């Protein structure tokens, strides 16, 4: 598949925004359980909510660039009964609204913050599932059609969100930094495990569609001599990444280093000596790594339609 940058930014940005919100709410739960003191509303929760909304909002804007007709985007909420994309189109604004109300409740010092936050948490998890299922539900894109796709979207979103929360807390709530770093390390390690599981699964995948099933000609040797046109078409642009195998392999190692190894190192260093700059760097590096990870996620999947587009003439 061709990796579209609008979708790469959408999924990575909302993932970080969702993870950051979960981190904020986790602090409030911990405070309610008397594990930590409640961080200040206006100094911590409100700017945290604004940061989370900035990330999810930027993701929503990025998604519009994916559309041929963004002015009709509101129509995408219509088919929630059957389409995961439609469900995401409802879940994302709903989650953002709930996070906004959560911030507003903290700003106005309402008592209902825990309840509003709980609703937002549910919407956050629904959004993770919707985003992952958009890819996992296409059964013949076999690299995607796995529960690991949904798990990775959720875990990697939490990993970058908690890394972001660590950097954010370094400026706003000193007492929470170590707890956030620990959680970020845990999610990053978990993400490394689940992403490697999906890499392993996809490296030994056996594609069900063959040139034989695509043409119905039962001969072991079939070679395409012409795809029916000399130039490009939507089918050659949208479904091929157009890069070499070596490039694909190098991106794999780059994302393993940037999304997992380096952030783990930087987060580990920060555990002993908290430095806001190192934590910011950890988030930036991990975010860049997740962009590479998402690029690889698209490029690695083979669409069966590619069987029909193997030779120009």
């Amino acid at each position, binding site marked *: 598949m061709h990796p579209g940058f609008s979708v790469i930014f959408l999924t990575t940005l909302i993932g970080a925004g969702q993870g950051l919100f979960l981190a904020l709410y986790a602090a409030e739960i911990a405070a309610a359980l008397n594990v930590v003191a409640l961080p200040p509303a206006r100094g911590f929760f409100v700017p945290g909510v604004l940061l989370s909304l900035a990330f999810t909002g930027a993701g929503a804007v990025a998604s519009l660039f994916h559309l041929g007709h963004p002015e009709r985007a509101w129509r995408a909420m219509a088919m929630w009964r059957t389409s995961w*994309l439609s469900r995401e189109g409802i879940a994302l604004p709903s989650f953002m609204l709930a996070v906004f109300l959560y911030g507003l409740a903290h700003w106005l010092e309402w008592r209902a913050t825990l309840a509003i936050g709980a609703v937002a948490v549910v919407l956050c998890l629904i959004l993770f599932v919707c985003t992952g299922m958009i890819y996992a539900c296409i059964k013949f894109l076999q690299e995607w059609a796995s529960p690991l796709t949904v798990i990775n979207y959720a875990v990697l979103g939490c990993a970058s969100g908690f890394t972001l929360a660590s950097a954010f807390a370094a400026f706003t709530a000193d007492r929470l930094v170590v707890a956030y770093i620990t959680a970020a390390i845990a999610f990053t390690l978990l993400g490394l495990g689940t992403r490697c599981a999906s890499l392993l699964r996809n490296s030994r995948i056996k594609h069900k569609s063959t040139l034989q099933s695509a043409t119905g000609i039962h001969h072991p040797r079939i070679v395409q001599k012409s795809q029916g046109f000399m130039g490009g078409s939507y089918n050659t642009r949208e479904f091929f990444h157009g890069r070499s195998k070596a490039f694909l392999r190098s991106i794999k190692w780059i994302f393993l280093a940037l999304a997992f190894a380096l952030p783990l190192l930087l987060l580990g260093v920060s555990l002993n000596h908290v430095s806001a700059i190192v934590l910011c760097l950890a988030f930036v590096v991990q975010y860049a790594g997740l962009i590479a990870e998402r690029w690889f996620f698209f490029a690695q999947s083979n669409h069966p339609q590619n069987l029909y587009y193997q030779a120009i003439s």
Partner: protein
Amino acid sequence: MTQLALVIDLNVCVGCQACVTSCKSWNTSGSAGSLADFRPYDEDPAGTFFNRVQTFEVGEFPNTETVHFPKSCLHCEDPPCVPVCPTGASYKRKEDGIVLVDYDKCIGCGYCAWACPYGVRELDEKRQEMTKCTLCVDRIYSDALAPEDRRPACVMACPTSARLFGDVHDPDSEVSIAIRERGGYALMPEWGTVPSNQYLPRRKTVINISEDQLVRADSPQKLDTAAPLKPGAKPRSTLDDAANFSG
């Protein structure tokens, strides 16, 4: 219930591309809007087509066969492109089973094309709307056309009648009979999409007969009828006599 579809006979398709140009000509001139062409006479031309004719070489030289393979929307009975559409722009008509796109509702997200294993949907680069074969829905029901012209443009253009059009749910239709009697098959049956368009395979006329069956060993013509029978001997019997007990 009606399910209109095409049946494509690979045995007679000569790969002339007449169906491709005829389809483009009709559908780019239609009320639904034009189909974009970019750099048609320059390097790297690109454009939207509903129908493509591809060519495959089967076997190894010298035992090769060239198969021309027309490909357009298969109007699946269970189209995977329809439920994924977030706006409901992609739909399958109840009355005749044609899978269509409501262009005014399409947001151009391309998700339906991802969800089609056959690669027959093309997002028009200029209109930024998903386009696909309509089975010439604006021809086949048109009152402005003579009844014999109410067929898809590709079917009308085919010089070898490799494209048949009709209702595959009517067991007595031309297409159903062709599928039944000439080995019609569906593409990528592994995904359960149940394509309505089917393909008729290449066929060779082969008689299963061995050499010795061509020559009748006990042909009466070979009997030496000139030699006289011995007195009292039975007339010479042949295989025919053994097989025919009534005599």
